[in-house]
């Protein structure tokens, strides 16, 4: 099987020849730039700075040579604008607080505060207020809350829709070029076209906008789910309409070269429970998700991908009902998220993309032997009958020992009965 066929089999709940592997195809299945650099060194690849393709979490780009060394089956396509509103172009060198030289987009403009904190600016505009901050010895950026005072009577859903506009033809053209390039290598393609993330808390503060309006503070947003539900419905409804219109335009250009579409990264789970009730989910999100998923399934061959951290066991039936094909990151370390239970109860109806190894304890702090054992066990549980794409539970975090990452990859290959790469 080619990588594409392998992923297709898994996504259609047919047993593939081996467990397909994803690293780097989305901004929630990636690897911190420092670990990408360490992996390049481990595999003896050309020594050169790694590209930071997602500057807020500082995710490193996995280039062809590394993907081959790791045996990755998936390529990612990303929207043109990053979290800070600039595109990945005009690369330049930048030194991380830990002294690693990396490549960042040209508009990655920063200033340093008195205490050494690093500030970054939307669209690289140093005249706008900074939209995120990396602590002096930090590894990634966090959004700065830029909430204008709220005057209840003047709140207008339009204010929260600035980032959800009809896609420009130039952006469609660039996505088309990217999708074609991604599909050319024989790997499966996961695309993040944007526009269908409903209330993703990482996007609400809008670090990509210079002067965000509406509700942009995280706590204020969560409260609005209960106290301003009509307002949130109005945002979601408009977003849904524009999002589907954009998908139609994009689909007309890229066709069925895409295997899976990243729809939404809104987290519904915490370590021990959920952010809202199942009823709230069904009132506020399910109708819009269903709309988007129905459109995709009626008009394309794409599978739809939902990311939600935490203990979402009780939400999975509703995710399935909403038409999602794929769930990520399958946080088995959260309450009621035991791998065997998930596979037995939902495995025939939803694909688990992730869950391959715990990133809270085992991968960063375990021994290579512990990593191997858990990976083998998870592959055994999740891969039966297809319906599984291997990935860690969320991005591989900075300071994760490279021996552990390698032990993880080798364990997947061992499970697959594939000779381990040099």
């Amino acid at each position, binding site marked *: 099987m080619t990588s594409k066929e392998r992923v297709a089999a898994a996504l259609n709940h047919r047993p593939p020849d081996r467990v397909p592997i994803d690293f780097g195809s989305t901004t929630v299945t990636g690897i911190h730039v420092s670990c990408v650099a360490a992996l390049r060194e481990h595999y003896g690849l050309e020594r050169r700075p790694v590209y930071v393709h997602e500057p807020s979490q500082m995710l490193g780009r996995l280039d062809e040579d590394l993907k081959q060394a790791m045996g990755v089956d998936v390529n990612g396509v990303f929207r043109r604008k990053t979290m800070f509103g600039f595109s990945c172009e005009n690369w330049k060198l930048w030194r991380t607080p830990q002294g690693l030289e990396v490549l960042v987009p040209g508009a990655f403009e920063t200033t340093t505060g008195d205490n050494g904190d690093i500030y970054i600016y939307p669209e690289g505009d140093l005249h706008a207020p900074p939209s995120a901050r990396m602590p002096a*010895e930090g590894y990634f950026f966090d959004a700065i809350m830029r909430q204008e005072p709220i005057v209840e009577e003047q709140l207008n859903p339009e204010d929260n829709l600035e980032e959800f506009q009809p896609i420009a033809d130039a952006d469609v053209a660039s996505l088309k070029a990217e999708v074609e390039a991604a599909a050319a290598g024989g790997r499966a393609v996961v695309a993040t076209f944007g526009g269908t993330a409903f209330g993703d808390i990482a996007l609400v503060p809008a670090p990509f906008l210079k002067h965000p309006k509406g509700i942009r503070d995280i706590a204020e947003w*969560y409260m609005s*789910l*209960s106290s301003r539900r009509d307002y949130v419905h109005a945002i979601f409804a408009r977003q849904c309409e524009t999002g589907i219109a954009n998908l139609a335009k994009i689909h007309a250009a890229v066709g069925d070269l895409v295997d899976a579409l990243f729809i939404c990264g809104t987290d519904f789970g915490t370590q*021990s429970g959920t952010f809202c009730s199942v009823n709230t989910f069904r009132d506020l999100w399910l109708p819009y998700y269903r709309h988007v998923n129905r459109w995709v399934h009626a008009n394309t061959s794409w599978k739809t991908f939902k990311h939600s951290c935490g203990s979402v066991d009780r939400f999975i039936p509703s995710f399935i009902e909403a038409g999602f094909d794929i769930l990520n990151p399958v946080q088995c370390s959260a309450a009621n998220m035991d791998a065997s239970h998930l596979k037995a109860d939902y495995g025939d109806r939803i694909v688990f993309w992730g869950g391959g190894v715990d990133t*809270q304890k085992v991968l960063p*702090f375990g021994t290579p032997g512990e990593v191997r054992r858990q990976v083998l066990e998870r592959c055994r549980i999740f891969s039966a009958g297809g319906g599984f794409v291997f990935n860690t539970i969320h991005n591989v975090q*900075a300071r994760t020992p490279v021996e552990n990452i390698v032990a993880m990859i080798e364990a997947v290959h061992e499970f697959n009965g594939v000779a381990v790469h040099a």
Partner: protein
Amino acid sequence: MPELRELYDAILNGDHKTSAAVTREAIDAGIEPMELVSGYMVPAMDEVGKRFECEDYFIPELLLSARAMKAALELLRPLLAASGAKSAGRVVIGTVKGDLHDIGKNIVGAMLEGGGFEVIDLGADVAPQKFIAAIKERNPQLICLSALLTVTMPSMKTTIEAFKEAGVRDGVKVIVGGAPVTAEFAREIGADGFGENATAAVALARQLLQAA
């Protein structure tokens, strides 16, 4: 005479406008601030905590109630200070260095405030030095450390060690919490306690400060 039960209801229902309005009326009517706090606000937040635990309330409702409680507390604070009323204890809270998750920390802070404690919130990504400065300047009895990233959990240990080095560890109780934190980890790093959630944090704070 204001209907004080409305204060309880306003907090429970997360209605900060009514909560402030009733409090203002009560102040004008000369009602003792402490009566409002212990008679209505603390019981309301207790009930909020219970509803959160049995999943009748979720994060949005909890944040709304916390805001309503704070709206009342803000008005009462100067009066409480002037009357020399004693809080249940003074608490310094923060998310440790390197970690910016603060939703859980804010909820714990609010529930402690709702439980009658005086809470000084240092925010997120708080360096040990900042905690130490707050201990020296503000004289708290309890320090609450929150962490959501396993990679920042070691910062909890570093923080407690820095307290020892600075000679301030013995004067305070330290409790820890956050998604990946366990009771075992708390013991390992020499904390005085661990709380699974915000209600547990309040119970633990009461227990530790009573014993002290």
